């Protein structure tokens, strides 16, 4: 009988494979069992379900079902809401009637566009009316739909009164128009930022992680685009520049806090395509317009005006990109199977 521990000698043996058999035998003798996993066929390793990989890494959460209309609605709604507040303030403080008038028109046009965008996402107009069946304070979607309904109604009334009064001046119309403007501004306050609460109060990790700061972020983004639209329409009121500066400053802080956060849930805002859009949107709505407005303060009047217009254009693009970025980030975040499975 030959010694089993002796290495094989035949000339035609596949030495690697023979040695492997030898190793298996040594391991079996030493440990009493062999821990190798056997042959792995082509394509291996196959996906396995385990606490480390979840259920094959298939996402647990569903992606937000909204189409392109929704980020656009966030942008339009944010701008319209802020415009109503600016317009009412401008009028009550007796500063700039032309500005207040254009604000009424923008707010009314914004609500018409907002409603059209929502109806387009829902599929048909009657579906929007289903929102008016009930009011649920625990649903930001319900609160938002009612805010839009109130804001839209009174913004339209204020704009109509403005138009009517120009041709047929009458005191009752003016009083009603001013009242409508007041209600529209009051509704505009939540309308300009409720979309931050809307997506923040969800199961999507990157959204609910930021639920506290999203309304301010979206609100300032809306304010930034509102003053920018007014400036691009030719309004040159100093207050608009001040507001734009403030909004850009707050947006800069928001961008900084996104960039410096180390939480895993924030990754979609910093990595990949959604991260790139977040970054571009952040620069265009924060530091860039802020720098341009500061530079405008020290420039001659002609040059200053140009710089402020550049800041306005940058802010509008930045605000739009910011909304697209947050919705894209939500998609990426919902596809992350790991976060919801952590304790």
């Amino acid at each position, binding site marked *: 009988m030959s010694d089993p521990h002796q290495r094989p000698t035949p000339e035609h043996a596949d030495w690697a494979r023979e040695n492997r058999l030898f190793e298996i035998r040594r391991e079996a003798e030493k440990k009493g069992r062999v821990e190798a996993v056997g042959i792995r066929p082509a394509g291996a390793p196959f996906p396995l379900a385990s606490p480390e990989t979840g259920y094959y890494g298939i996402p647990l959460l569903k992606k937000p079902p909204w189409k392109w209309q929704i980020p656009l609605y966030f942008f339009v709604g944010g701008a319209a809401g802020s415009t109503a507040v600016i317009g009412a303030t401008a009028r009550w403080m007796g500063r700039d009637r032309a500005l207040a008038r254009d604000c009424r028109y923008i707010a009314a046009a914004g609500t018409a566009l907002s409603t059209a965008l929502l109806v387009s996402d829902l599929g048909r107009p009657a579906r929007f009316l289903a929102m008016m069946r009930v009011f649920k304070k625990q649903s930001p979607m319900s609160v938002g739909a009612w805010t839009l309904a109130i804001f839209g109604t009174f913004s339209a009334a204020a704009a109509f009164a403005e138009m009517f009064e120009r041709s047929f001046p009458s005191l009752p119309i003016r009083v009603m128009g001013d009242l409508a403007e007041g209600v529209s501004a009051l509704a505009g306050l939540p309308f300009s930022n409720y979309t931050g609460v809307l997506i923040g*109060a969800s199961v999507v990790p990157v959204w609910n992680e930021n639920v*506290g700061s999203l309304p301010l972020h979206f609100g300032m983004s809306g304010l930034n685009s509102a003053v920018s639209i007014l400036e691009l329409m030719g309004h040159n009121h100093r207050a608009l520049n001040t507001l734009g500066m403030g909004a850009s400053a707050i947006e800069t802080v928001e961008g900084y806090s996104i960039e410096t956060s180390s939480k895993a849930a924030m990754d979609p805002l910093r990595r990949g395509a959604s991260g790139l859009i977040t970054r571009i949107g952040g620069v265009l709505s924060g530091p860039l317009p802020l720098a341009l407005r500061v530079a405008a303060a020290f420039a001659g009047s002609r040059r200053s005006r140009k710089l402020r217009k550049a800041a306005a254009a940058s802010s509008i693009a930045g605000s739009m990109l910011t909304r697209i970025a947050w919705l894209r980030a939500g998609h990426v975040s919902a596809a992350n199977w790991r976060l919801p499975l952590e304790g």
Partner: protein
Amino acid sequence: MNPTTTAFLTDSTLCIGCKACEVACKEWNGLSGDGLNWSGHSYDNTGGFGHSTWRHVKFVEGSPQPGFGGNAAEHFSWEFSSDVCKHCEVAGCLEACPTGSIVRTEFGGVFIQPDVCNGCGYCVVACPFGVVERDRQDGRVFKCTFCYDRQKVGLEPACAKACPTESIKFGRLDILQLDARERLKELKSRGMHDAQVYDPQDTSVEGIHALFIVRGDPSQYNLPPKPEVPTTYLKAGWTGSAVAAGILLFGSILAFLGSARQ
């Protein structure tokens, strides 16, 4: 507890992965098929819940474990589990629904009234279990109805009726909760020490009406350890909204005041 509150108890230790529940659900509710496409994830061709997939049999194919499949090292360990809408005690979808389409039935289930749903899709991002989905063609959202139509006339849900091994049990919630505990004791006495009941009562969901008995870590069945109802984020959100509104209002007033003095 309300004695009419009904529940599922899905016992993965009894499931044989036959998908009778999936088929029964689709046939009874008139849902379209998922296609026999291999996903590359074991024998799971469904992948997850959808607007037309309300029962989902999970095939948890784990690494080889000693004691499984003889001593052959290449044999995998298997678990099957039929997943379904959890019909949460505090349901994210129900709270989020702006139309009142999603209601709590007299059996304690969470039901979407298809004639009221307007397809806003907010429930989709409010469900911590990824159950609800919007049908792109139809525009509305759909999920397990807990066979409300069958329960109304005293029948058990289609999936439970079709299950050949009684892996899907249907009955009163309070009784099934006791059954689950009994079954767990029995399984442990037979050496299945990794068996556990999935019923996240200490979260904001406050318990579910579809209990599960699974072996090993529930996360490998895509069952989240801490599902949260999004209404828990509302306070922080509306506080932020009030702050933003305040800044907008007082910012505007100050800006116009300041510009007047120049």
